[in-house]
């Protein structure tokens, strides 16, 4: 009987369309921030200030949404800052992201509970139904906040999850209601243009107050990031996740600006009960200001708005408790927090211990802190979290941009995420003017998290498969302050090609040598099977060692999913000063200028790079060094000088004058030859006038034995797809060649971190 080995896998059914996940984001965003933010923003910044607050916050939120959109499209099944941080910076940073996400979501939940309480208590007080209670309004609000938070903690314990398909229609309802309020505001102005006078004075306290109002209302723009967690259930996630995030931020911003406008024009100056100018009157109610203004805008406005706020804050409260619990559960599951955080109730199948701790944060913040401190604490933590995501998108694009399959990439990279980082930093700092408490709570939470990581999580966490791992490492000589040269060995033939040059450079630099072989393991193969692929590389390492034993030497064999990424990681870890690697002479894909590994190493290596093509055991009597960008040409001359000493060769430094200007070659040469290992007596200069630098270099190089070429100086944090003179020459030249790229200064320092 034939054995039928059928593999059955289970996964969630994909049922959430673009509409559903957009509504998911909208539902989370339209929670509380706008309802309590409008009144306070008008109070602090005036009528024009509230409009500018929401418009500018929308732009900043969109910048981060672009980062989330790009990351979610590339990594759709592992959504969230926790996983993005893990992929970009490792476990320590991912713990910090998860830790911050837990607190941020919990405090946002507190805010939604407080918002629900404020509007509910306000409504029932307005109806005269709460007079019998012996407590103040503030106490009533806190009691209601406690009760509603406890209720939803219980709901989550029982197993109610995020909204899904039914919740989308609730969100649609409350969104349409807010759109209706916005439109009503415009209609009122059309009917009574004198209402526009409510906008003056536009900025009664100046422009600086807007930074404060932007800070504490920023929480109104958090929520779209939960769309990243819907990757497993969304239809066509690579396409729909980024769209949903961007649509939700745009829609919410337009709604907020319209609703803020309606709020300002809803109150007629001099109407009964309105003391002072309309904006001052609205602002005097602070958190309730929005409610008071809308109650004057339309019949039953008070009731309808209270209903909208109740639905909005409850659905957001439910979702944030779920999201906050999931964040701490994930930390427990990965053993970054004690194991009991990942305990699942046998009866309810919910992470009940994570829920208890989350509930502790939600309730204590909701009950103990003033509303503005709650809003500010939530805002500041989300600002820090989004700061991390914006850095992660840059790092992941640089490290893994060639491996991941993107459904979307943002424009103006990396300037938009850098701009987002700066803007969020400014808002976070300015929040100290609003709430010193928030600025105490947030750093205390983060620092305590860092402490927990170092004293507990680091020693308990489980390893993950995505990391580059060492298979074999043998160190014959201990680490020292010596110049370090790493040689990337692919196989025995490649090793022999590089031996001679490696010996010369190592001797000249008095370097220790680290032989590295990266074992690329295909995606389908478990990393545990990596050793099957390493034999050829191991032979290459052994071959190279035979010739290099006179130097202090280390050998490393590592496995990885991507060779270039593995090499860069090794360069950073071992603090290498120079890497030597081979190149076969032709890119295998049109995407790359020289090759998939060589291109990335030239772009990202934080050290000197020396690429060898076709050198073997040849001797060289005539070496040509075209001079272009200063640091790279200087290194090219130095490498040429080392080889020339060995072979008693002549070096010709070659300049092409494209613009028919007189080149002061003596001055250039003077500067370049200040590098060590350059014997000026061996160097001659030659320059020609030509309209085509590539052709001029290729024509001149035909009569030389070796071409040593410095690469063109390139932008710092970008992948390059456009060609340059150096790469065009490298591809066309058929004889032995060395390509070099120099490190040094701030650029290398940045590359070590990124």
């Amino acid at each position: 009987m034939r054995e039928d080995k059928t593999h059955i896998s289970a996964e969630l059914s994909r049922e959430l369309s673009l509409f559903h996940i957009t509504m998911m984001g909208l539902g989370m965003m339209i929670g509380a921030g706008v309802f309590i933010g409008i009144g306070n923003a008008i109070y602090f910044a005036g009528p024009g200030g509230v409009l500018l607050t929401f418009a500018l916050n929308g732009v900043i939120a969109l910048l981060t949404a672009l980062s989330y959109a790009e990351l979610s499209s590339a990594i759709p099944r592992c959504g969230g800052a926790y996983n993005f941080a893990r992929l970009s910076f490792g476990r320590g940073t991912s713990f910090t992201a998860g830790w911050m996400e837990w607190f941020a979501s919990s405090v946002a939940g507190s805010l939604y509970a407080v918002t629900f309480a404020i509007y509910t208590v306000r409504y029932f007080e307005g109806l005269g139904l709460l007079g019998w209670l012996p407590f103040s309004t503030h106490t009533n609000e806190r009691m209601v906040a406690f009760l509603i938070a406890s209720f939803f903690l219980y709901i989550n314990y029982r197993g109610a999850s995020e909204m899904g398909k039914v919740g989308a229609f609730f969100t649609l309802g409350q969104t349409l209601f807010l759109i209706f309020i916005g439109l009503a505001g415009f209609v009122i102005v059309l009917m009574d243009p004198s209402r526009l006078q409510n906008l003056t004075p536009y900025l009664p306290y100046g422009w600086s107050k807007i930074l404060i109002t932007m800070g504490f209302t920023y929480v109104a723009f958090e929520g779209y990031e939960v769309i990243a967690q819907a990757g497993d259930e969304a239809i066509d996630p690579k396409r729909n996740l980024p769209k949903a995030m961007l649509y939700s931020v745009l829609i919410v911003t337009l709604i907020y600006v319209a609703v803020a406008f309606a709020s300002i024009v809803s109150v007629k100056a001099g109407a009964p009960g309105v003391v002072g100018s309309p904006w001052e009157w609205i602002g005097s109610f602070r958190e309730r200001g929005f409610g008071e203004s809308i109650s004057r805008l339309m019949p039953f406005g008070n009731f309808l708005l209270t209903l909208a706020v109740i639905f909005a804050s409850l659905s957001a409260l439910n979702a944030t408790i779920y999201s906050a619990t999931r964040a701490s559960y994930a930390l427990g599951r990965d053993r970054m927090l004690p194991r009991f955080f990942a305990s699942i109730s046998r009866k309810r199948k919910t992470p009940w211990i994570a829920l208890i701790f989350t509930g502790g944060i939600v309730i204590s913040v909701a009950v103990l802190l003033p509303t503005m401190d709650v809003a500010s604490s939530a805002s500041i933590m989300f600002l820090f979290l989004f700061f991390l995501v914006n850095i992660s998108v840059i790092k992941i694009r640089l490290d893994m941009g060639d491996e991941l399959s993107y459904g979307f990439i943002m424009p103006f990279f990396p300037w938009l995420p850098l701009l987002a980082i700066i803007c969020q930093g400014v808002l976070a700092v300015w929040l100290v003017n609003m709430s010193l408490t928030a600025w105490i709570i947030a750093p205390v939470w983060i620092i305590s998290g860092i402490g927990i990581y170092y004293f507990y999580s680091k020693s308990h966490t489980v390893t993950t498969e995505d990391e580059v791992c060492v298979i074999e490492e043998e160190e014959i000589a201990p680490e020292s302050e010596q110049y370090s040269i790493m040689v990337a060995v692919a196989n025995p033939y490649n090793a022999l090609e590089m031996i001679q040059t490696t010996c010369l450079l190592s001797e000249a630099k008095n370097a220790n040598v680290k032989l590295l072989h990266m074992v690329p393991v295909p995606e389908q193969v478990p990393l545990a099977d990596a050793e099957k692929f390493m034999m050829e590389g191991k032979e290459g390492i052994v071959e190279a060692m035979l010739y290099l034993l006179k130097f202090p030497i280390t050998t490393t064999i590592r496995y990885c999913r991507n060779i270039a990424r593995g090499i860069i990681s090794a360069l950073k870890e071992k603090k290498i000063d120079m890497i030597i690697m081979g190149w076969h002479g032709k890119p295998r894909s049109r995407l790359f200028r020289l090759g998939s590994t060589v291109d990335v190493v030239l772009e990202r290596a934080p050290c000197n790079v020396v690429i060898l093509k076709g050198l073997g055991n040849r001797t060289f009597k005539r070496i040509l060094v075209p001079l272009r960008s200063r640091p790279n040409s200087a290194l090219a001359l130095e490498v040429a000088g080392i080889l020339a000493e060995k072979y008693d060769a002549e070096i010709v430094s070659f300049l092409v004058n494209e613009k028919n200007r007189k080149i002061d070659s003596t001055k250039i040469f003077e500067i370049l030859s200040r590098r060590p290992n350059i014997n000026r007596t061996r160097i001659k200069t030659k320059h020609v006038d030509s309209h085509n630098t590539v052709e001029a270099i290729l024509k001149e190089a035909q009569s030389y034995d070796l071409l040593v070429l410095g690469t063109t100086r390139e932008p710092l944090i970008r992948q390059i797809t456009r060609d340059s003179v150096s790469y065009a020459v490298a591809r066309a030249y058929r004889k032995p060649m060395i390509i070099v790229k120099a490190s040094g200064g701030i650029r290398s320092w940045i590359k070590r971190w990124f």
Partner: protein
Amino acid sequence: MPKNVIIGSIVIIVSLGFMIYIVFWSRKTIENIRRKKLRSAREIIKRMNERR
């Protein structure tokens, strides 16, 4: 009309306009990536540069 009103209105219009432009540009990019079956960031950037 006071200077702040003019500057503030311009800032709001430019901000919202910028957001609308970016979202529509992004939507077009997502569809192009999908249609041309592009994968890595390098491939996408190269195609976009070629289009220009």
